[in-house]
């Protein structure tokens, strides 16, 4: 077998076949997905009914009426209306809207046995005594201020659960507003209808005569998640490469390896080996993402072409990050020294995250386009642009940028190999960035 592949195999096995990796990269994502599903399916909290008397002290008749209305039981969840045309974005909107109302229904305590009474003659002391001995469930005390506004005080027993408390607090606030409207002879339901935010359906046209409906959240979630996954996994794979190189250098095993293979075979083997590790990691995260997208019936938010470009960008990003890490690893003697060289590298690696708002806002803008041609930003910006572009980028442009990116990645791997060859046997003071550049030109 080719020595490069033997080294790649060893690096892959010794990283992946460890408990730490298994738990970090395999168990944790699967556990996260499993727990999310289990919580959704089985672990809904038990909400007890709100049974008892709510005393309202010094409240107007409008307030009592409004409070009775806001606390009345029997609100139904909005039924799920499936879009007739099968449009994904509409489906997602409908599911989310329905889910929100289902949550209200499910998480809201049953108030069918709750009584609301006015207690004009009660005193602060008697109210507190009635709540402590559980005669009343809770009490609302309204005190007029000097400026005509009212101060509301909700008095509850120590045992009141949060779900009850939240419902009472929310209902009192809403009832106070409704009472004010009624005081002005306005009908709250009418006002609510007048100020309700309309449901907006965005239809994006294309120049070929077609159109598609888009959900607002998909505009940024998919690009950011895809880029984030690539960023996270390539950085983790690169870090594995860095620490492995430093470990081999500091333990002096590197020259033993170089007695059996060339420096080029060694660095390429390591890059491939940790590349496979990265692939395992992103596969696990992709599986989790696929589970969530399937649960949301939104799997078609990611097109096949986007997946292909994302896969190519992942490879390109890994090669670039791995080259940087291999260069740094070869140039230093330990992790402490690596920090000084990693400073500028980290700044470069963080740049795609800082550019997310600019690129997703205008994927074809000058900043996004220029950043695509700055390695190692190329793969991150490109994947962001491709998945965020409302008007798809031309294939000519995408292929051109991919070709540029892979040429840049190959150049970075080559330069890392040159630095690796010179630096890997050197000990002592770490080189300056200028010296690193000189190493590239060494014979």
């Amino acid at each position, binding site marked *: 077998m080719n020595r490069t592949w*033997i080294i790649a195999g060893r690096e892959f096995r010794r990283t992946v076949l460890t408990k730490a990796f298994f738990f970090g990269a395999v168990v944790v994502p699967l556990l996260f997905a499993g727990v999310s599903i289990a919580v959704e399916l089985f672990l809904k909290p038990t909400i007890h009914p709100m049974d008892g008397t709510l005393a309202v002290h010094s409240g107007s008749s409008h307030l009592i009426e409004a409070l009775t209305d806001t606390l009345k039981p029997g609100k139904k969840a909005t039924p799920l209306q499936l879009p007739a045309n099968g449009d994904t974005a509409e489906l997602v909107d409908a599911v989310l809207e329905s889910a929100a109302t289902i949550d209200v229904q499910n998480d809201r305590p049953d108030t069918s046995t709750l009584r609301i009474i006015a207690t004009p003659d009660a005193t602060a002391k008697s109210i507190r005594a009635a709540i402590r001995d559980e005669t009343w469930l809770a009490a609302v005390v309204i005190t007029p201020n000097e400026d005509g506004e009212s101060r509301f005080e909700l008095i509850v027993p120590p045992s009141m659960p949060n779900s009850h408390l939240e419902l009472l607090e929310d209902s009192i606030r809403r009832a106070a507003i409704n009472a004010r409207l009624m005081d002005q002879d306005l009908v709250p339901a009418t006002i609510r209808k007048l100020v309700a935010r309309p449901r907006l359906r965005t239809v994006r046209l294309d120049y070929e005569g077609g159109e598609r409906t888009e959900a607002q959240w998909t505009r940024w979630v998919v690009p950011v998640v895809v880029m984030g996954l690539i960023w996270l996994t390539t950085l983790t794979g690169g870090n594995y490469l860095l620490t492995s190189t430093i470990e*081999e250098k500091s*333990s*002096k*095993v590197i*020259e033993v390896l*170089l007695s*059996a293979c060339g420096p080029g075979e060694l660095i390429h083997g390591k890059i491939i080996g940790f590349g496979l590790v990265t692939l395992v990691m992103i596969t696990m995260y992709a599986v989790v993402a696929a589970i969530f997208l399937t649960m949301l019936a939104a799997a078609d938010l990611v097109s096949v072409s986007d997946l292909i470009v994302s896969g190519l960008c992942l490879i390109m990003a890994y090669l670039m990050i791995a080259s940087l890490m291999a260069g740094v690893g070869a140039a230093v003697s330990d992790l402490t020294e690596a920090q000084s060289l990693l400073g500028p590298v980290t700044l470069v690696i963080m740049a795609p995250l800082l550019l997310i708002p600019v690129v997703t806002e205008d994927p074809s803008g000058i900043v996004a386009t220029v950043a695509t041609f700055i390695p190692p930003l190329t793969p991150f910006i490109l994947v962001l642009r491709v998945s965020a572009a409302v008007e798809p980028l031309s294939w000519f442009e995408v292929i051109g940028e991919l070709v540029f990116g892979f040429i840049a990645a190959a150049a970075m791997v080559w330069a890392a190999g040159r630095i690796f060859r010179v630096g890997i046997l050197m000990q002592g003071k770490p080189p300056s960035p200028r010296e690193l550049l000189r190493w590239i030109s060494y*014979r």
Partner: protein
Amino acid sequence: MTEPVIQLEGVTRRFGEHVAVDTLDLEVHQGTLLGFLGPNGAGKSTTIRMIMSIIYPDDGAVNVLGRSALDAKDRIGYLPEERGLYRRMRIGDFLRFIASLKGISKSDAIARIATWLERLELEGIERRRCEELSKGQQQKIQFIASVLHDPDVLILDEPFAGLDPVNRQLLSSIIRELHEEGRTIVFSTHVLPEAETLCQHILLMDHGQKLLDDSLASIRKRFEPSELLIERLEPGPAPVVAGTRAQAGDAEGLRWSLHLTEGTDPQAAMASALAGTPLRSVQQRQPTLENVFASLVQPGGNA
């Protein structure tokens, strides 16, 4: 003479302003056991690394087995000066990994590893982790890694460093056996008596330059001191020998050392000494590598 197995022509290697190896020419022929000597910083390890194609010369050409060492790695065994093991890796796994890099099949590797572990008195440690071994044991494992693939050429950089006398003797005997099997062996060392015992040929370097490149016999002849060591049967004065420029004796007057003038024939001087005085022994003093080393290596270097 056989074709050279290792050939260096005008090889120069600089590190910045420092010239580590300066226009070095060298030929090592098939079956030679070459001792590569020199003080620290002489350029030995740099030369060896260039021979192994781990680093490349700035000028000149290096050939091993008629090509670059990179292409001939499967036929070269190399024990580097800077050596280490994967701390957490098991000995068997490490040796099998190195064997696979050298192109040895898994089954073959298992058999060879068992043989070599036994030969170096390390039986039963395959399952142990590298970090659990003593320094000497680790060094023997590294030696096994360098010979596991049955190389034609063996390059050992300071193979005796860190070994106790028993293991040093064991390693010497194995090197001798490998040489007797017809392998070409180059080893650098600071342990001059070991080199003197083992080597046929000596290469001495200092400040990146070759000071000496000859067979041990020729070196002895060339650096033969004009000095006779004489032991009398009875105490008395130094024997009278023509051509003596200086003499020194012990307190009893039994043992004498005669320094001859340049051009005096030692054989004739010994015959003359025997003729004039009853002696227990008379011999010409043999030059040691340490004498040669001390006389050639510039003081004030890195040694």
